Structure formats: C-alpha cells, structure tokens
C-alpha cells in the first residue's frame, strides 16, 4: 500500500472524508437540523464518488452530436442515472425528516433530541 495513490485519487479521498463528516454529524449531533444537514452531506458525498467513477478525462457527455456513435467518445452515463435516482431518494427522506422535525418542534419547542426525550419521559405517556 503506498500513499501516493491517495494523492493521485484525491477526489475520491475527499468524497470519503465528506462521507465520514456527514455520517458522524447524522449520528452524533443533538440538533435535528444539524442531523439533517449531516444526512445531506453524506448523500452528496456518495453522489460525488459516483460521478467521479463515471467521468473519463477528456471525453464528452453522452449526447450524440455530429453522428459520433463510438463508445470511446463519451463518458459512462450509468453513474449519472444512479446519481439522479439517489437524489430523488435523498430529497424524499429529507422531506420526511424535516416534517418530523416540524412536528416535534411544534409540540416541544425544542430541536434537541435528547431534551425532547427527557420531556417525553417526564410526560410519562
């Protein structure tokens, strides 16, 4: 294992660092909004990784112009399709999380999940 590869593929390394940042934010932050931000960083980092995997340096977007049909002329379009699907998924889970946050805030006037838990335990229902 040599670490030169790490610098050579610095984009992938960055996307993994972003994934870890997002992951730990989603796991460890107490504030619900910060959790949701963490979720979005985490998902975006995966999309960055996918986009990098599909990109081939010097080639064009896979849209046929001037009748060039050879495979060697274009980048891989599948990761782009996966990214689009992934974005739809992450938008919908973000919406669910935000609506849950609104409900909890309206009821307990707090965004801190631990405080909310304490209040619920005090309610005892």
């Amino acid at each position, binding site marked *: 294992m040599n670490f030169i590869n790490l610098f050579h593929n610095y984009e992938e390394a960055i996307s993994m660092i972003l994934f870890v940042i*997002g992951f730990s934010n989603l796991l460890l932050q107490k504030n619900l909004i910060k959790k949701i931000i963490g979720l979005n960083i985490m998902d975006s980092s995966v999309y960055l990784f996918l986009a990098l995997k599909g990109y081939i340096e010097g080639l064009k977007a896979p849209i046929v112009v001037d009748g060039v049909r050879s495979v060697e002329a274009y980048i891989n379009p599948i990761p782009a399709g996966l990214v689009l699907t992934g974005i739809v*998924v992450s938008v*919908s*889970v973000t919406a*669910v999380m935000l609506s849950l946050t609104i409900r909890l805030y309206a009821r307990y006037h707090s965004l801190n999940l631990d405080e909310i838990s304490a209040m619920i335990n005090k309610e005892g229902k």
Partner: protein
Amino acid sequence: MAFVQNFPFMSIIISLVSGPISSVLPGKIAKRVNICVITLLGILQSFVLAFVLKTGEPYVYRMGHFSAPWGNEIRVGVLEAAMALFFCIIMFLSMIAGEKERIRDVEDHRQNLYYVMVNLLLCSLIALVYTNDLFTAYVFVEINTISACGLIMSRQVGRTFEAATRYMVMSLLGSGMLLLGICYLYSITGHLLMSNIQEAVTALATSGSYHYPLLVAICLMSIGLAIKSALYPFHTWLPDAYGYSTVSSAAILSSLVSKGYIFLLVKIFYRVIGFDVMKDVRVLNVLFVFGVAGMIMGSIDAIMSDDVRRMIAFSSVAQIGYIYMGFGLGTTAGMVASIYHVVCHASTKSLLFVAASGLTDVSDGKRDFKSLSGSGYRNKLAGVTFAVGSLSMIGFPMFAGFISKLLFAEAAVQSPNKMLITLIALAVSTILNAVYFFRTVIRIYTPAVKAGVKESGFAKVKISDNPKKSIAMVIFIIINLLLGLSSEIVIDLIEKGLAMFA
C-alpha cells in the same frame, strides 16, 4: 413464457399503484381496497410458488426488453416466492387483527393514509424479495423505510414521533452505508445486476486484485443492513416504536420490515458476493459477536421492563440477535436455521403483539404487569394465544420456536470454533426468555383479587365481540403449530431455495 411468470412483476405494480389510489379514497373503501390487494397478492404468490416448485428451477424475468447486463431483472426461485407468500399472509392477519384498534388510534380523516403506507410497504417488501438488481434494491429499501416511518407515527403521541425520528436517523445511517457499499461494488465490478456482480466478484477473489475495496464493500453492505434491521447496539428506537404505535403497525414492523432487510442480506450473501467468498470474510464474525450480545442483552432489557408491549419489543432485539448469530456461523446449516427463524419469529411476534393488545384492552388500556393480573380470564382467547406465543418463543416442543433452536444448536455443532459460545448463548438466552415470558403468563392467569387489583372497571371480552381479531388469533396459533409440527416441509423448502440461489 408461461403467464404465471408475469405475476411477481404484477404484484409489485398492483401494490405500488394501489398506494396512491388509496390516498384519494375515503377510509372505509381504502381499507377494502387494501384487504383485496393483500389477498390478491397472496393468491398470485402462491401460483408463482406452485409454478417454481413444478419446474424445479428459478427463472429470470426481464423488465423492459433489454437483456442482461443492461436491463433490469426480476429473479424468482422457491425461497423468494415462499417468502413473498409468507409476507402476504402475515400482513393480511396483522391488518385484520388490528382493525378495531386502528380505527380508534388513527385520526378519522387520516384513516386512508394508513393504507397508503401499508400498500407501499407491501410493494417494497415484495420488490426486495424478487429484485435481481442491487440499485433497485436500494431504492425499495428507502421506500420501505419511509413507509415504516409512516406506520410508526400513525398513532400521534409524543413517543411515536420521537421513535420515528430515531428510527429514521438509524435507518438513514444504515442506508448510507448500503449505498456506499453498492457504489464501491459497482466501481470495481462495473455491474448492478446480482448475477453479473457475482461473476465479477468470483473473478476478483480468485485473482486477488482489488482485495481491500471488495472487503470494504462487503462490510459496508452487511453492517448497513444490520443497522437497519435493529441489530443489538442499534436498537434504541425499537421499544418505543413497537411499544406505542397502533397494534397492526407493531405487528407489521416487528415481523415484516426488519425481515425484508434480513432477506436482502441473505440475497447479498448468496447472489451478489457468493457464499464461498463470503465465508472467508471476517465480517461474519462481527455479526456473530453482535448477534450473541443481542441475544443476551435484549433478554435482560426485556426482564427489566414493566410494560408488556415494551417487553415483547425487547424480545425482538434478542430474536434478531439469534438470526445474526446464525449468519455468523458461516455455514449453510446456520443460514437455514436463520431463515427458519425469520419465518418463526415473524409469525410468533405478530401473534404476541396482537394477543398483548387483547390483554391490555381488558385491563383498561394499562400495560404494567400488576394491572394485567387475571386478564387471561377476562379475554380467554387472547390469554391462550399469548401463552402459545410465549411457549413458542421459549422453545417449547410442538411450537415453531423449538425447531429453530434445535436447528441453531445443530448448526453450531458443525462449526467447531464457535460451538461453545453458541450453545452457551442459546442456553442462557432460553433461560432468560423463560423468565420473562413465564412471568407474564403466570401474571395473566393470576386472579386479580389475589394480586390486589380492582377488577370492577375492567371490561370482559367474549370471542364473538371482535370476530376478525379472534379469527386472526386462531390462524396465528394454527400457523405456529404447523411450523412446529411439520417443520420438515419448511426446512426442505428453505434448503431447495438456497440451492437455487447459487
């Protein structure tokens, strides 16, 4: 191509379409549509199962007219069809058993939305079972998560909101890891269809190239799905979610949602990575350790809780520990035992939740053990059902739980390194199970006068008061006895199905 071969695809589409349609229907009609859809899907799955058993080999169904490696595929074998049929049956029973409670717990103008969630959940479960494409599996995993979240918060109290939030956070962590694992696997193999990935992975494993990325991908996917199915240290959301949601939700969540993820994990082990490669990866040992820890700690938590619904929920944590322990053994016998336990736990846990709701209803809605005294006399059928479920969970002969414990013990003997730990964990966990289940059964058959509880305010329920629930409970008992008494058929089916996976 036989017409029956279209049925898996039709099932997915029917339940997917019926979801949005239910959102504009009034509650009562939505309920009927939902029951019809589940029944229809059950019938379709049984045709598919009969077809696959007759031909004796799995078939691949192309989605759209592109063949592999470009198009999307559905793959149907014995185990897939049997699992989908089983999911439909449990879903049907849970829905009819919890009908009265659902009408009480869910607000009137939101009744129909509950059925939207149930239809989408069923759609995602069946798609997870049948799909042959990893990215499709990921998308349906997320649909599963969102609809399960809707089911948790259908009864709108503070606890369910908090539980739903915690559930979403844990689930999203898991699906983030799953997604990253799939992307790794895609980037080193270049495929998304399970069969193509398996070929590429076998080639990679023999040549030894991309060793670490492959390892990381396998770990990410296994651990991600383990987090999503509430393996022991990641179970914090579970007691509140199962304990305070309406009873159909609790039954569906405990018996189906986590099992969908577990079945996907089995598919990943066999169809994506290949079991020969999987055996050499040490992530199975990690799952084994967490599984054993879950078996013990879940049971201890269950003993400590003073609320019957929460107790059953903690018992789920222990049972999911059993399943992962079986995976961790790393043998085919262990996998068979785990899949049998998936079936056994799914049928028993939904039975227990339904019976427990029957018992709390005749105790003025109170769930602590003191108030439950004598409830077995006030609602006789629920008492008997709860006793059957308890005996099955403890592993009493004749019931389903006994067979699964037997299979786990047999599987443990075959893997010498882990034999001692497995057998000790099984013994300890069985004793702990017996402690809390027998305590509850004795409590519900202790006359209330003796326990010093005033019975005057409590209602008595006859079997004919809630006929649908009574019928569901009787069917649950029959399923449990069938699984326990004629287990050879089920085990034979599982072994055949696993052989078809390869």
